Structures are given as structure tokens and as C-alpha cells.
């Protein structure tokens, strides 16, 4: 079941090119480019940081740290790997969860955040042609259409930074069930957003190994 597009904007896109130009400016050390990107994305970045950390002070630090990360790593941005928005939000999430984990426990931590952003942060936005016609409400509806168990697993991982094992412990569901729900939820969300099913997606990790559909 696909979500019909609610907002149609030109695709293609002058905004993409504009972002590319802004990132070129930022990589060249031009403050104006950073100011424009901040003005464009600060409220989205702050909303994500606040949702994850639940503390305004910590969220403010995360946002500042994330924009500085973008500033320092702009030269590594690859337009073909996705939008600046997606890249920035990935940085925000990464740093917010790291801050959250540090707050949670006085346990020894291994990997530390640094300016060398993990390569997984460079995962591309899917389907730029889709991004242009999705607004926040469309995405919210797509997420709400997920079965609650799948939605919960994805949100616990995405917003709370829990591992599959931690989710299993918290929810009482078997680890295998959590893994299945996570995979099915992401595949279903992709289908909700695009209206497409892609055979390249991984099979459900089930006993018989058959490829599953959302």
C-alpha cells in the first residue's frame, strides 16, 4: 500500500544544485554557505536531536557539534550519495545517540565520535525523485501505517539508539522476532514511501530462507 503523494514540487532540481553549490562554499570555508544551510535545516536537526536526547541543553550541543562536523567534512560530501539534508540528519542522529549512550551509563566506551564520520553515514537518500514530493505529513502517515510492533522496533533503534539485543530485552520479544520486525518494517516503510518493491532487498532471515515480501 503506497502513500499517495500529497505535495508535488518540481523534481530535479534546482534545490539539489543549490545544495551542491552551498556545500562547495562550505568546503571552501565560506561562512555564508554554512549560514544558509543552518537557516534551512536547523529546526529539523534540532527536532531530531531533541527527540533522541530529550534534553534541550544536550540537543543544542549536538546540533552545534553536527553543523561543525558538516563544516569540517564538507569536502567529503558526495552529491551522488544523497542530499545534504540526509547527510546532516545522519550526523545529528549519530552524535545524539552517542551523547545519549554516554549519559546512560558509566560504562567504558569504545569507539568515540570524531570528525571522521562513519561510512555508514554516507548511505544515500533513496529515490531523489520521491523526496521532492514527500512532506512530513506524508512520512508520518507512512510510519503510522506500519504494524505497531514493527514501528516500535524501528523507533527504538532509530530514536533511542538501542541494539536489536537491547530491544529484545526491553520488549520481551525473542531476538529473532526483533530482527524480523526490523527488516520487515524497513522494507514496508520503503514500499509505503515509494510504492515499489525491489527484488534486491534481502530475504527474510527465516528458517526456510525464502524471500519475503512486506
Amino acid at each position, binding site marked *: 500500500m503506497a502513500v499517495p503523494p500529497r505535495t508535488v514540487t518540481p523534481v530535479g532540481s534546482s534545490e539539489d544544485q543549490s545544495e551542491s553549490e552551498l556545500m562547495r562554499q562550505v568546503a571552501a570555508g565560506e561562512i555564508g554557505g554554512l549560514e544558509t544551510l543552518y537557516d534551512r535545516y*536547523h529546526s529539523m536537526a534540532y*527536532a531530531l536531536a531533541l527527540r533522541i536526547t530529550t534534553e534541550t541543553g544536550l540537543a*543544542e550541543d*549536538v546540533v552545534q557539534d553536527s553543523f561543525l562536523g558538516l563544516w569540517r567534512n564538507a569536502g567529503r560530501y558526495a552529491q551522488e550519495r544523497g542530499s545534504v539534508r540526509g547527510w546532516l*540528519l545522519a550526523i545529528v542522529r549519530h552524535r545524539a545517540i552517542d551523547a545519549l549512550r554516554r549519559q546512560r551509563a558509566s560504562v567504558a566506551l569504545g569507539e568515540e565520535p570524531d570528525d571522521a564520520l562513519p561510512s555508514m553515514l554516507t*548511505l544515500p537518500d533513496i529515490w531523489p525523485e520521491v523526496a521532492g514530493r514527500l512532506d*512530513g505529513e506524508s512520512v*508520518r502517515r507512512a510510519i503510522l501505517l506500519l504494524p505497531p510492533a514493527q514501528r516500535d522496533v524501528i523507533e527504538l*533503534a532509530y530514536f533511542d539508539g538501542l541494539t536489536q539485543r537491547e530491544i529484545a530485552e526491553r520488549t520481551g520479544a525473542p531476538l529473532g522476532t526483533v530482527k524480523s520486525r*526490523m527488516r520487515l518494517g524497513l522494507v514496508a516503510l520503503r514500499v509505503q514511501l515509494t510504492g515499489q518493491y525491489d527484488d534486491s532487498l534481502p530475504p527474510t532471515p527465516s528458517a526456510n530462507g525464502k524471500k519475503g515480501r512486506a
Partner: protein
Amino acid sequence: MVMTCARVRELASGFVLGALEPEEMIAVQDHLDGCAEPHPEVDELGGVLPYIAQSLAPVEPPAWLRESVIEAAKADLAGSRRMAMATTSAPAGAVNAAPAPHLVAVARSSRTRVVPFSAFAARHRRALAWTSRAAAALLVVSLAGYAFVVQNDLNTARSQSTANPYGVIGPNTRVAKLSPSDASSQAAGLAVLQPSGHVFVQVNHLDATSGDQVYMVWVTADHGVTSKIGWFTVDSSGTAQMDFTNVPNSASLWLFICKEPNSNVATPGAVYLGGTISL
């Protein structure tokens, strides 16, 4: 951990959400880095993530945050320019200003215990925000940028290192000059991050402490969390040397020293000396 293409496909959803166990995350990443086969499932599933964030209603941060971000970027830019100048101006024999990637691995492997900070952060988040702004406003300069300007200090420290037990400065150390926030002060210092993760601090020309007074040493890691790593007192000589082991791992550390009425303070007071150690 051996990872096959089929196993990576199974783990893709957990991987893109960062929800695998650490060793699995590393194994999948290593496989993707070296695998000749395409793994479109990782991009396809991972591409969903930005849209999850987009489902949140935008929230406006405080207005001062914009200025704070921009000022921090300007300070960062100033540091980079100083670094470029130092790289071209440093005399023969100057400290190697090139980044030392191996040092990152060494520092990470030390797995120092992060000072429990949750309660402090919860109670004093205003102070955290303050330190972030202060960090932006004060001189934030990469270590490499100091290669030229602190040469005299380093030469001094090198000569002293033969007489101290720390072996202060070596090929794998990183050094930051600690500068006073009050330009008229003669106080000065060096902070040396050693491969072991220890930070050696030497200060000179400090006012002597009296009674319960202490100099508290704080660090702000690059994720913005500030913690105190220790304190010291100073006699009429105005000098002190310390070695701190409870230092958070971080790509950069802003280390600063505040003079406090006692050692029980929970939030930093006025900054006396400060400097940034960067890898």
C-alpha cells in the same frame, strides 16, 4: 568474525540502523569495504532513515545557537588558516604537524572510562551550553596550528622531559599550548596527550592557591560533554605538573583550568587557562 554476502544481506536492516552488536557492525562494514559484489540492500534500506527523521515536526532551537555555530566555525577556520601558515613556516625540526592516524587507534584502544557525567549534565545543562559557547568564543585551534607558535614551549618541555618520569613529548604525542583567558596574565602551560591516553599538564606562573582553593582541570570532548579530570594546588613557585588518566577519548579535547574556591565545585568557573588538543 567471518561475514558472507548472504549474512550481510540478513543483517542489513540492523546495520543501517546501527542496531547490531559492535563486533557485527565492524564485520559488516569491513565486508562492505572489501566486497566486490554489490550490496544494494544496504543503500535501499538505509535510504529510508532520513525520512524517519523527517516525520518529526520541526522544533525551533534558541536563537543564540545560530550565532554559536557560526562563531565556532569561524574559530575553526582561523585555526585551519593558522595550521596552513605553520605548515609552510615551521622551521626544520619543528614538531611534525601531520595528523597521526595510528594515534587514533591507540587512543581508542585504551578504552578509558568516561567520567560518569549523567547527573552533572542533567543538572547543569546550562553550563554545558555555556562551555560550548565559550569554546567557540575562545581560541580554538588545532594542535597542528601550534606547531610553529609553541616551538619555544616545546623545546622547553623537551629539555624538561629528560628530568621527569613521564617522557612527556615523543613522536606519538600531541601537544596544546594553554593560554590565559586574561591577556595580561603571565600564566602559561602545556597539555600533552600521550599514546596511552594520559594527559600530562604542566603550568607555570600561576597564582599560588591558599586555604581550600584549587585549580580544577576540565575537559570538553568533541561531543560537547564537559567533565572535570582533576585538581591541583600551587605554591609560591607558581608551577605544577600533573598526569591525568581519566580522560575521555575524543578526536579533540578542549582542556581548561579554572581557579575554584574548593575541589567540590560541580560547574566550571571563570576560565584561567585553556587550549585544544586535536588529533
